[in-house]
């Protein structure tokens, strides 16, 4: 039996005293691709942020075991260094900070955590070139300030590009597909598929099943009101598309497959 990469048990989380996640369970094994679907406001982004360690969200109950360790005990930077990556739904701009400078700081932080030397400037450039190809990102973006003035599509590609550079173990993609046209979606999906491997897992958060035509998940979960109400394979996503979320919302909770 494989050891799970991450086990989320009975997770409850609040923001501003309001409970958003209300007893969520999810286990992801190495190499698996899971998709979380759900209506707006169901708590998808909250889950992503809690996993990444945003402290605005308060975990009131439950536990998260990541590679045998207590994830909730780690600071966000430590989680990142241990291989948790979040591609943000709304990447923020950091004026005046060049993208290359930012990325080098990130790579070197991760390397330092692993006890490795800093990357040398030439190797960094080589690495960036190679990974940019993966998502067909324009090289000029590297010279600009982080996300500043990037179009919606550029921001999303930039997230996946960073993911490729940092080579995490758990990749959480929060609605990376929204705001992408069909060509860009295909490119991003190809990039993600190229990164799939037996020891890298994905949690794809999406509102539409469209993305799942390109990145075929092993499991699909439906999140409603802060709880997973149904799980299945890719077929579940198709069914959801046909019947809409009102179909699962009416189902009794905890119909976990």
């Amino acid at each position: 039996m494989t050891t799970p990469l991450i086990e989320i048990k009975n997770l409850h989380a609040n923001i501003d005293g309001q409970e958003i996640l209300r007893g969520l369970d999810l286990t992801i094994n190495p190499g698996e691709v899971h998709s979380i679907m759900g209506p707006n406001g169901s708590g998808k982004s909250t889950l992503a942020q809690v996993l990444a360690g945003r402290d605005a969200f308060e975990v009131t109950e439950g536990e998260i075991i990541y590679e045998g360790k207590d994830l909730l005990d780690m600071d966000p930077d430590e989680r990142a260094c241990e291989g948790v990556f979040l591609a943000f739904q709304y990447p923020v701009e950091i004026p005046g900070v060049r993208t290359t400078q930012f990325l080098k700081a990130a790579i070197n932080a991760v390397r330092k955590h692993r006890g490795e030397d800093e990357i040398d400037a030439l190797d960094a450039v080589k690495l960036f070139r190679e990974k940019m190809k993966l998502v067909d990102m324009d090289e000029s973006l590297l010279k600009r300030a982080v996300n500043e003035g990037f179009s919606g599509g550029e921001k999303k590609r930039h997230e996946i590009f960073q993911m490729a550079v940092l080579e995490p173990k758990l990749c959480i993609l929060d609605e990376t597909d929204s705001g992408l046209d069909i060509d860009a979606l295909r490119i991003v999906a190809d990039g993600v598929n190229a990164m799939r491997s037996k020891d890298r897992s994905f949690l794809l958060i999406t509102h539409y099943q469209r993305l799942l035509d390109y990145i075929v998940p092993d499991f699909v979960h439906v999140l409603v009101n802060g709880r997973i109400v149904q799980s299945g394979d890719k077929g579940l996503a198709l069914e959801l598309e046909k019947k809409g979320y009102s179909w699962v919302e009416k189902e009794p909770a905890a119909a976990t497959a």
Partner: protein
Amino acid sequence: MTTATEQTINEFTGKGYKHGFVTEIESDSLPPGLNEDVIRFISEKKKEPDWMLEWRLKAYRDWLEMEMPDWQNVNFHPIDFQKIIYYSAPKKKPQLDSLDEVDPELLRTYEKLGIPLEEQKMLTGVAVDAVFDSVSVATTFKEKLAEAGVIFCPMSEALQKHPDLVKKYIGSVVPTNDNYFAALNSAVFSDGSFVYIPKGVTCPMELSTYFRINAMNTGQFERTLIIAAEGASVSYLEGCTAPMRDENQLHAAVVELVALDDAHIKYSTIQNWYPGDENGKGGIYNFVTKRGDCRGDRSHISWTQVETGSAVTWKYPSCVLKGDDSIGEFYSVALTNNRQQADTGTKMIHIGKNTRSYIVSKGISAGFSDNTYRGQVKVLKNASNARNYTQCDSLLMGDKCGAHTFPYIEVGNSTSQVEHEATTSKIGEDQIFYCTQRGISEEDAVSLIVNGFCKEVLKELPMEFAVEADKLLAISLEGSVG
């Protein structure tokens, strides 16, 4: 190289300077207090010409008639001017045998700033290795400048060797009675730098970058005068990133810059005097008058400052744009933490035609500090087509600190254009999270974001100092998040 430096080097190496440089080591000091005899004593000790003594005395008499200004947005204890010692022999620091004897906290900061070992020793008064041949470095430096015809020496030396030049320019930019602290400085100034760049000469090196230790010997009432003749250009750097402790609480310097036709002066400052402890105890009062006179047509003066130290800072490096087509620039980063208070900004006075000024001010406040930008842009009647652009941004860290902006704009000419933009923002929790999610520590994230915020100013600094300034900002912000 200034005598101050050579003197220090000599002290360190125990060698006399062999190129005929005479530095008298005075042995006596005056008791605290200020009166005309004290000024006579200072002038005499420095073997100044008679006119200089008269000049000092006039300044002193003006000062007696003046009152301490109170319009700044800062609070501090009253200063007792009779308790200050206005003349004392250069102090020799106790010589240490190795860095092991130095305060480890200080060394930790030097290390973070990336200051080389040998330089750390010089800064802390540890005997320097013979391998580090400072004397020969200083000599090469001096020879190179002399070849170019550049004069770069202590003010006291200039008064003896180039009295006519000093007489012609000193007080011509900042008159002795300009303000309370300028008058005091004129009366009692101890020393400072004198720079003269002759016609058409581009100074072959960044001035004052070699030995930061320079700055340590300049004293409490520093006086600097820089003249760039027609077509000359020079870049001067004052101060250093290493933290500077000093038992003198009041620092009241005067800096005058004169740019003739087509001349260019770039003056950069890094100010890191002791800011006091977290509760605001101790710390330097830094009350400085800095002014540049764009006297010639097409002249250009640019001020860049990174202010992170001092308990109370009060300074407005200014440009008087007299020459037609002259340009004045002011780039500033002022960072305050804990209980620090800074009231800083600039004045741009447009007198000539087609004059242009450009102001970029970045204020960062953390802890319980207060950070004020105060800027004046004045366009006189004949300054047709004058242009000013001011951008003034404040970044707040936490909610116990303050940021204030006071722009004063007076336009007396209808063909001129003055633009002012100001923003105030809080350091974004979402920006910090974005960085930490990529593995960057919270502390590094803050310094990355602050560095980005200050980018437009930091890029104006000489290269080697830009890197240090970046680290300095990070160190100054330590403990301000989390």
